[in-house]
């Protein structure tokens, strides 16, 4: 079953290192938690949201791939499957956020709430919040495991009907995926400032998550692309497709972030505009400028070039830049909710992504090495190859 014996030593080495980072990070987090509970929970939420975004982005790409089955999808299918298969473990890692809910989410304390927030307590209350988390993680894990289980079955049997089965399953899954991730982004992030709302919030976070996952996949293709079995099938066209997608999602991210801002800015209503005022009429505006330049202008200008999109070396460097910018973006989304006007930096906000990242990558490589790196018996896989004559 396992076709990547040659890669096993590399995978195991990487896994060891990830575990080390994870253990050191968790120790640092524990120390930080003893020093300042508030900083611990805020940083933990931040770190968790980054890696959860990557996980959900993987799941989104996986569902999308089964729906549209482009040739690029086969190259990254096993990466996104492995990423999505970490979902049950991510549910466990969500527990500290539930413990810290009282410190993170103002709506959990029923005193001194604004009138508008009191009206929202029918949705924003702890029991219903917990029920929703069970539904989200249950549904996501089900989709991830069902799709990857069938794909693994097909690896052995080569049964063509499984492809059709997965495709039919993916249509409704995509609808529920978008709905659940939108609601989850409201629960986890938007309700940090419960008096504020934006209907574009959810789609912005979905695009951010998929962008994270795409950049992550491109970095993996850079790592594994010159080794068997990927080296046998990887062509410039695959890389070009991935580069185009990275560019499309970079533009989409900017489009959504700007549209949201433009609508709120031109309305300029006091109940809508405080979210942006907190982030743009304060010291946090530094982040806004960094994001416009680093998250949109620079990668967009670079990705206009056909040459950069067709070579994995420069493309993977851009992808690393995008991953860094994803961290900056999340920082700007999360932290101003706790620190309205002043820039805030605590060393725990480095330790938390590192700790969760170490654990996540350890889990991820564990999933990745347990299966062939390419879905070799997928009938569309060969069509995708034949397309190049």
């Amino acid at each position, binding site marked *: 079953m396992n076709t990547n014996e040659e890669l096993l030593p590399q995978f195991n080495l990487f896994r060891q290192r990830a575990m080390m980072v994870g253990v050191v990070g968790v120790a640092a987090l524990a120390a930080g938690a003893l020093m300042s509970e508030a900083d611990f929970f805020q940083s933990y939420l931040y770190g968790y949201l980054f890696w959860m975004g990557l996980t959900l982005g993987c799941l989104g790409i996986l569902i999308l791939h089964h729906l549209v089955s482009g040739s690029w999808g086969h190259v990254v299918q096993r990466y996104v499957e492995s990423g999505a298969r970490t979902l049950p473990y991510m549910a466990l890692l969500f527990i500290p956020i539930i413990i810290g809910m009282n410190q993170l989410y103002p709506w959990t304390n029923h005193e001194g709430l604004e009138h508008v927030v009191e009206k929202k307590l029918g949705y924003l209350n702890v029991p219903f919040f917990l029920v929703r988390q069970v539904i989200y993680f249950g549904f996501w894990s089900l989709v991830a495991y069902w799709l990857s289980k069938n794909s693994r079955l097909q690896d052995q049997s080569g049964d063509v009907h499984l492809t059709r089965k997965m495709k039919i399953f993916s249509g409704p899954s995509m609808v529920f995926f978008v709905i659940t991730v939108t609601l989850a982004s409201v629960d986890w992030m938007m309700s940090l400032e419960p008096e504020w709302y934006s209907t574009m919030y959810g789609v912005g976070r979905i695009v951010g998550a998929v962008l994270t996952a795409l950049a992550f996949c491109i970095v993996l293709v850079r790592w594994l692309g010159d080794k068997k079995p990927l080296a046998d099938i990887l062509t410039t066209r695959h890389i070009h497709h991935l580069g185009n997608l990275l560019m499309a999602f970079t533009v989409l991210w900017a489009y959504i972030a700007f549209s949201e801002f433009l609508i709120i800015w031109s309305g300029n209503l006091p109940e809508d505009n405080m979210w942006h005022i907190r982030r743009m009429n304060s010291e946090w505006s530094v982040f806004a400028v960094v994001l416009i330049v680093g998250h949109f202008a620079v990668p967009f200008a670079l990705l206009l070039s056909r040459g950069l999109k067709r070579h994995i070396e420069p493309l993977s460097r851009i992808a690393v830049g995008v991953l860094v910018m994803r961290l900056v973006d999340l920082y700007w989304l999360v932290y101003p909710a706790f620190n309205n006007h002043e820039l805030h930096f605590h060393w725990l906000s480095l330790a938390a992504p590192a700790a969760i990242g170490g654990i996540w990558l350890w889990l991820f490589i564990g999933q990745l090495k347990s299966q062939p790196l390419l879905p070799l018996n997928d009938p569309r896989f060969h069509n995708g190859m034949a397309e190049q*004559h």
Partner: protein
Amino acid sequence: MTFFVKRPDIYGLMAEFDAPEKILAAAERAKQEGYHDMDAFTPFPMEELTDALGIRHSKLSLFVLCCGLFGMLFGFFFQYWVSVIDYPLNIGGRPLNSWPQWIPVTFELTILFSAFGAVIGMIFRNGLPRPVHPVFNVDRFELATKDKFFLCIEAVDPKFDKEKTRKFLESLKPDYITVVDHVHTKDPYHQDDE
């Protein structure tokens, strides 16, 4: 003065193949031989031919980029001129230079100018409008839309020599070699199918 170079007395030499791999190999060989001014005609698009023919990166994308940048600057500063300089209006106490409001139009004009630049630039760089092309003077050329593959080396190529080029094409083992004239002629001297 390239404008007054004498037109070669024929357009070029054309070789006919019956399989995509053959024309791909032939184009590759011709590129290695040093020919630049050549073109291939196939019944379906073959992306690899672009590389095999050694077609260099088109300057069109640079032109489109310039058009796009011009459209962006024009779009932005036209709105600035209207709202701030030419006809300043106080709308709800908002600043005259309300630039976020102009971004959508700026974006649209960037796309519009790029698209115009791409279409018009493509037409001119392709030498269009052009009612007729000499390759159609070859009677068998209509098979390029059915099942045959043609490679045409043009006489304007510096390496082109009627005899040597013909010898070279023969070494590629095509099904036919045909002289492409500037005007349609039934002259049997030129239609010398092998």
